[in-house]
């Protein structure tokens, strides 16, 4: 997992790698929440380009962050989920409340 802050837009970009399951989720959650507090970011972009697998633990991570960011008045955007990840996202109905787009550039225009 890598993170970068785009300060003037208050966007935290989280680039996930490999596989997001319950084991990984525990860490990811903590790190993102700390970073949101530390940086005063209010928008969150999940860059899923390099995420090859996600199970329902990932749904919990996304929805949990969505709730926090909503309270801050910002939004969550998902970039480029691979087919397996996209199916999980759609099965959970996440695409109805969170925007999905193909490139990081697009995501940054949408926040």
């Amino acid at each position, binding site marked *: 997992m890598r993170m970068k802050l785009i300060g003037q837009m208050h966007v935290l970009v989280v680039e996930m790698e490999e*596989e997001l*399951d*319950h*084991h990984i*989720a*525990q860490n990811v*959650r903590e790190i993102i929440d700390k970073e949101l507090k530390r940086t005063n970011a209010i928008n969150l972009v999940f860059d899923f380009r390099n995420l090859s*697998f996600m*199970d*329902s*633990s990932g*749904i*919990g*991570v996304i*929805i*949990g962050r969505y709730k926090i960011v909503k309270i801050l008045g910002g939004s969550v955007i998902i970039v480029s989920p691979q*087919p*397996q990840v996209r199916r*999980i996202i759609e*099965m*959970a109905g996440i695409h109805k409340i969170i925007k999905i787009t193909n490139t990081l550039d697009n995501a940054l225009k949408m926040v």
Partner: protein
Amino acid sequence: MDNMMKLEFLNKSNNERFARTVAAAFATILDPTLEELSEIKTAVSEAVTNAIIHGYEDSTGMVCLEGRIDGRTIEFIVSDRGKGIEDITQAMQPLFTGKPEMERSGMGFTIMETFMDSIEVESVLGGGTTVKMSKTLKDR
């Protein structure tokens, strides 16, 4: 039965990835499509994660993953000797979770049902839970 395997492992969360990799490696014997393989991996990941976090919670125990191949049909049985499920019908409802405080989504059983052809759950309170899932792969 054409093939079978039985894997037992500690209920540590870093074994979740290990267990679904084993399931995928076993399924590979049938030369599945990429989509079938990722469906199997996901369904097994859900069942194994449940055994680890709901079955055992903070206690130590072993999780068992059995695989069977019969023709083009592959079956996985995930079992724990943990706390068991009180109301299976409720547990299997989409979005129901016993652990909202852990940010569980309650979608585990729904994913297993969607990605596999059939699923059977047996559970004994205080005795453990067994989830049996099967899927018939496309002829190749």
